[in-house]
């Protein structure tokens, strides 16, 4: 069953046409990688799918709850600690992970330093913020992930952790659409690609 289907999508910024007549569908357990140069419309496509931009032409049908991660937007409150951030989204979106489960995830992702709860996210490095944003995406338990350059700022260990999490997500029937420039990553997953 398709979790996302897009039909004949076109989008332009003023007079500049970004893409035209784009159609695709993504089923459960499937990964679609959006590829292309800078400014070709990959992020805009993800924004359209996430409902952050209005569709100008064409049709999008989404059958599953989604979790979105922007390229330059981690979606974290900088004044709050890692735990407070995750607890906020869990409580707000009525998700069922216990504090222990959140702590466990933070530990797996290398964010469980004993004093980490004392530091606001603003003091984190770029890679740590990205890791935390990915943990939030995973804990959202959404069947559909929309990820814009998820590997941005991650070290080798972070990339491996993400690969593992993504494999688990796809094996559990989830699907993912992501924009990425990483050729090795798409080869590792033998994923379907959409070129812009």
């Amino acid at each position, binding site marked *: 069953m398709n979790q996302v289907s897009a039909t004949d999508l076109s989008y332009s910024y003023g007079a500049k046409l970004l893409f035209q007549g784009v159609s695709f569908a993504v089923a459960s357990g499937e990964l679609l990688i959006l590829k292309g140069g800078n400014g070709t419309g990959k992020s805009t496509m993800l*924004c359209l799918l*996430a*409902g*952050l*931009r*209005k569709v100008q032409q064409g049709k999008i049908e989404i059958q599953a*709850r*989604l979790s*979105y991660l*922007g390229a*330059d*937007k*981690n*979606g*974290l*409150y*900088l*004044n709050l600690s890692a735990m407070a951030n995750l607890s*906020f*989204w869990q*409580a*707000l*979106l*009525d998700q069922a992970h216990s504090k222990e489960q959140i702590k466990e995830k933070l530990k797996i992702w290398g964010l469980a330093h004993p004093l980490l709860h004392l530091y606001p996210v603003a003091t984190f490095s770029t890679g740590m913020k990205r890791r935390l944003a990915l943990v939030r995406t995973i804990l959202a338990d959404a069947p559909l992930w929309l990820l814009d350059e998820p590997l941005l700022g991650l070290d080798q260990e972070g990339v491996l952790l993400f690969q593992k999490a993504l494999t688990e997500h796809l094996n559990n029937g989830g699907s993912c659409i992501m924009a990425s420039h990483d050729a090795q990553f798409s080869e590792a997953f033998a994923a379907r690609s959409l070129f812009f």
Partner: protein
Amino acid sequence: MKKEAKQMLWLLKHSFRLELAEKERALTPLLLAMILFLLFFFASEDLSLAAKERAFIYQLYLVGVIVLQGLLVRMHAPEERDEAFSQMVCSTLSPIVWFLTKLFLTIALSLAVILPASILLLLSYAISPLAICSPILALGLFLSVFGLSCIGNLLCVLLRKSQGRDLLFPLLYFPLTIPVLLCGTQSSLAAFSPNADAKNWLLLLLAFDVIYVTLSTLLFEELLKD
């Protein structure tokens, strides 16, 4: 409905925490209120009681407008700065819950400045502090704050991406405040003159509130998208 109420309570608690984390956001309106209080205090010595009562009402509403403007112009700043705005938009959070939370937050924070300011003003003008308990004054003030908060929150979302937000917001907000302020002050003046008829002004104020609430609830969700 239960889920929405829970979401709203949680978001409200979180928003208060974010507001309190930034001391200047609470301090700026408070300082502005104090400056207004001091300026008018020295000008009011020779006024008659009736003039003092009028001055009290006008000054109270002036404090209210300035406080609201200070709060509203950056109402979505924590979400914008912390990049959480898009997360909120594409989450399962209902836009109505989000709007109502921001509305309650604006009303609560503005009343937290307006109410102590009103007592200070009453004392400085040597008017009985019991005047604040007048139902007409309280109703007029609340309906005004409610209406101005509604339309202010809508404008804030409309201008959130705008480069000149700090300049555009007061320019667009100003004409929308005039009818509400006119009705609010005129109805509140009746608190000091028992023969005056406040009913029509309050009904007009209520009508503006209904218009602003309807506009806000209809347009808020649309304006969240780029």
